[in-house]
Structures are given as structure tokens and as C-alpha cells.
């Protein structure tokens, strides 16, 4: 049986890859996808812990995370579409009016 450590380390690797994606990519859609990857990595760790403790709560939380991710994607992509309409670009380097 594969231990919990292996799953948690895999989830950490995926999380770091997602975080690097958020930092490296300029395309807002790709940044979003990287955030999804990070959420998934967290889900994997939650399910691994849930099995280790032989409880169901971790899995319920993963269910909630998936739901919240769906809501987040719906709003985020709507934002991206709106921004693209006004700026003709979704490059996050172009969208820097908020810079102080």
C-alpha cells in the first residue's frame, strides 16, 4: 500500500508547479489554470489525510473545494472576457493600472 507520505509529496510537487505557473505565465487564462492545479494538489493532500484518519470529513471538504473552484472559474472567466473586450488583451503585464 502506498503510504500517505507519497501522496502528500506528490501533492506538494503539483502545488509548487502550479505556483510557478502563476508566477511565470503572463496569460490570465493560464494563470487561472495554474490556480486550478494548486487547488487540485490541495485536494489530493486532503483525500490522502482523509484515508489516513479513516474519516470522511476530508472528502467532504474536497467536495466543497471543487464547488468553490467551479464558482471561481465561472466568475474569473467572465472577468477575463470582459477585460479582453475593453483592453483587447489578457496579458497580465498589460493590465497594470492598479499599480501604485
Amino acid at each position, binding site marked *: 500500500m502506498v503510504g500517505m507520505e507519497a501522496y502528500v509529496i506528490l501533492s506538494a510537487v503539483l502545488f509548487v508547479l502550479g505556483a510557478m505557473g502563476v*508566477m511565470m505565465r503572463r496569460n490570465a487564462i493560464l494563470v487561472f*489554470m495554474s490556480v486550478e492545479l494548486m487547488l*487540485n494538489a490541495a*485536494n489530493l493532500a486532503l483525500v490522502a489525510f*482523509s484515508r*489516513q*484518519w479513516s474519516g470522511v470529513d476530508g472528502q467532504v471538504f*474536497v467536495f466543497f473545494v471543487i464547488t468553490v473552484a467551479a464558482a471561481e472559474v465561472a466568475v474569473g472567466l467572465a472577468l477575463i472576457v470582459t477585460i479582453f473586450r475593453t483592453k483587447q488583451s489578457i496579458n497580465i503585464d498589460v493590465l497594470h493600472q492598479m499599480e501604485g
Partner: protein
Amino acid sequence: MSIEVILFLIIGSVSVLSALMMLISKEAVHSALYLILNFACIAILFLMLDAPFLAMVQIAVYAGAIMVLFLFVIMLLGADKAREELRQFKTVFAGGGVLALGLMLMLGAFFISAGTDDIQPIPENPQVRVLNALTSFPSADFYLLNEAGDVVATFEGVQFGTPEEVPPFVSVEPGTYILRVANAGEDRSLPVTSQTPLTLEADQDVTIVAYGTLGAAMLALPEDMSYLEGNTGRLALVNTTETPLALIDVGSDFELNDENELETAEVILPNLAPGDVFVAEYRADTPYWAFVETTPEGELTDRIVLRLRGFVIHGGRSNLLVVGTERGVENTLYPVAIKFVTPLNPAAGSPEQIGASLFVDYVLPFELVALLLLAAMVGAIVLTQRSGVKPKPGRPTRRKVSRPLTSVIATQTGQQDVIGEPAQLNEPAGD
């Protein structure tokens, strides 16, 4: 290396590779496709972690809905527009490297210092229920008393014999208890008490079988309510009569006389002493079984004590069969089968188990998440409206009634004084 380890290595490396490819693909569409592969890998990992329901949700929601939304937006904005160059800053790679290193160090320190071997499930309180097989109490109240003599649980009006509805387990603290019995609805100052104290340990599901013809005896039967694979059920036999019994399979021919029956019968259980329990796992079946009296030495006699007619072993359930004693006419005592069928706990990670937790322990978060989804839906629609949300231009002014109704009626009927006699108007006003 077991198959599971090999599978984990393959799936894990595919998921890491697909995440990497997502990271460095120039085309946004390719990135999205690699991410779908990554999600599929994680769904398989969920399956390996005993979470089949989440694996299904992962495929349906992530790989299905969310990624389709992503692909849709990429196509909507034009795939060329989504093409981009990676940032070439060295600081990003350095930052990522430091982040990764820090996370790994933290995890390593955690696993080395804490370890995972001593992580044990939190023990749950023992659960108790009572089955009434008392010949002298057709309906009884049971009181569970702790060592201090306080009543911690009551089971009221427990009917003798096979209950129509299986009473639920009652959760109590671990410890030593005494069970008291009284006739249903009667004063409990003169109860019968169990001779031996019952010790209930954590994580136990205990069915207390109360039996006895004159006094009351108790038998605490710890039941294994964990999930069973396939069409198998757990069977527990309890002998509460005063004679030792043997269980035989008489086959389907009930019409044979006793001698032939006993010659051809297959002995399943040679000796079940009074107060003994026999526990086994059986496939779901409708067996033709009978109990035969045995001598104290364990020799089978030819006296069939009880035939189990219409006895069904249910799969996925705990089947408890108690041979009790019932009082018939003129105080004759005869054995009777008391059946007690309870569903076993659902499998780990099954929709049943998650649903039970979701709708019992997490109802409020569930409703809040539903509200959040609703808000997100409205938000997405509002955001993508081309010119924001404006109220629809309506009619500029309200239509006014230029003339009172009575004058309309007057012009139509040619009469002036319709006021005061509305009952005479046969035709409705207006057109």
C-alpha cells in the same frame, strides 16, 4: 513492488509531467489539454485513495465542466491571442525553486519528526441497542445505568421478538454499565438487573440480547458493522434456550419425515450451547435450516426443535438470529426464531457515506456553498453583459381611466341611473 506502488509511480509521474507541460506549452489550448490529463490522473489517484465518489466528481466537474469552460473562453478570445512568450525572469525560477525547496524541507521535517505511524483514527463512543427476547416481558423498558447508578440511556417499550423497525444504536461513553429491565410503563423501582456488568469499549457496536424465561439474563454481543464486499452478509446466531442446539441444513424437502431428514441433513454447527454465540459470513441465501436438540455431550438427538421457515440471509447486512423462548397457551414454552436485520455501514468514500456526512454534519456549509454558486452564476451573467444591466424601457405612463365606469355603462345601455341596482346588469361592462 506491489501493483499499487507501480500504478502510483506511473500515475504520479504522468501527473507531474502533464503539469510541467501545461506550464511550458506556448499554446493555451495545449496547456488546457495537458491540464485535463492532469485532472484525469488525480481522479485515478482518488480511486486509489478509496474515494470513488470524488473521483467521479473530479471527472465530471473538473475535466468536464471547468475545463470545457476554459477551452470555450480560449476559443472565444481567439487561440492566437492566447499565444504568449514565457517570462524569462530568473527571479521567478529562483523564487519557484526556493518555494519548492522550502515546502519539501517542511514536509520532510514533518514526516521525520511526527511520523505517520502513530496517526490513528479518533476512537468513537460505543453504540448500544437492546433486543428483547425475554419470555416474561412482552414489552419492556430497559435502562442503562453507569457505575454511579445514573441512567444514561433508556430503551422504552421494546417489544418481544422480531421488531418491525430495527431500533437505532444509542451512543454512550465507554465504561462499565448495568442494564435494568422493567415491564413497559411500570415503576422502575423494582426492576430486574443484569447479573454481570457490561463493559463497553470504544469503537464497539453492541447489541444487548436480553433473554430468560423467569428472570432476566443479558448477553452483550459486539457486532461488526463494517462494510462487506459483494453479496455477503454477516450472520450471528445466539442460543438463549436452556438446551444445547445443533444447526443442520435439511435441504429443500420439508415434507420428509424426521428420520430421513436427519440422515440426509448436513450439519452446519454441531453444538451451540445455551448463551453461546456463533458468528459467520454467509452469501445472501434462503437456506432451509433447522435446529436440533443435542445432548450435553454434543451428540445429535432426533428432535427438531425449530425449523427456520422463510429465513433469509440478507447480503450487506448484519443478520442476527436469536433462538428465544416464547410462552404459548397453558404456559407451554416453545422455541422461536427472532430475526434482527440491520444494514451494515456504507463503504468508505462511497456516495452513501459522503452524502450522510454532507447532509448531517455539513448541512450549513452545503447550503452556503449552494448560495455561493448562485451568486457566482448571477455574477458571471452580469459581468459578461455587454452594457451592464439596465432596466428594460417600459411604458412611459400608466394608462388612465378617462371616464368612470358608471358613465360607460350608461352610454352602452342608454340608461342614466344604474347606480344602486348593480344586480340588474346582466351583461358585463366593457366590450
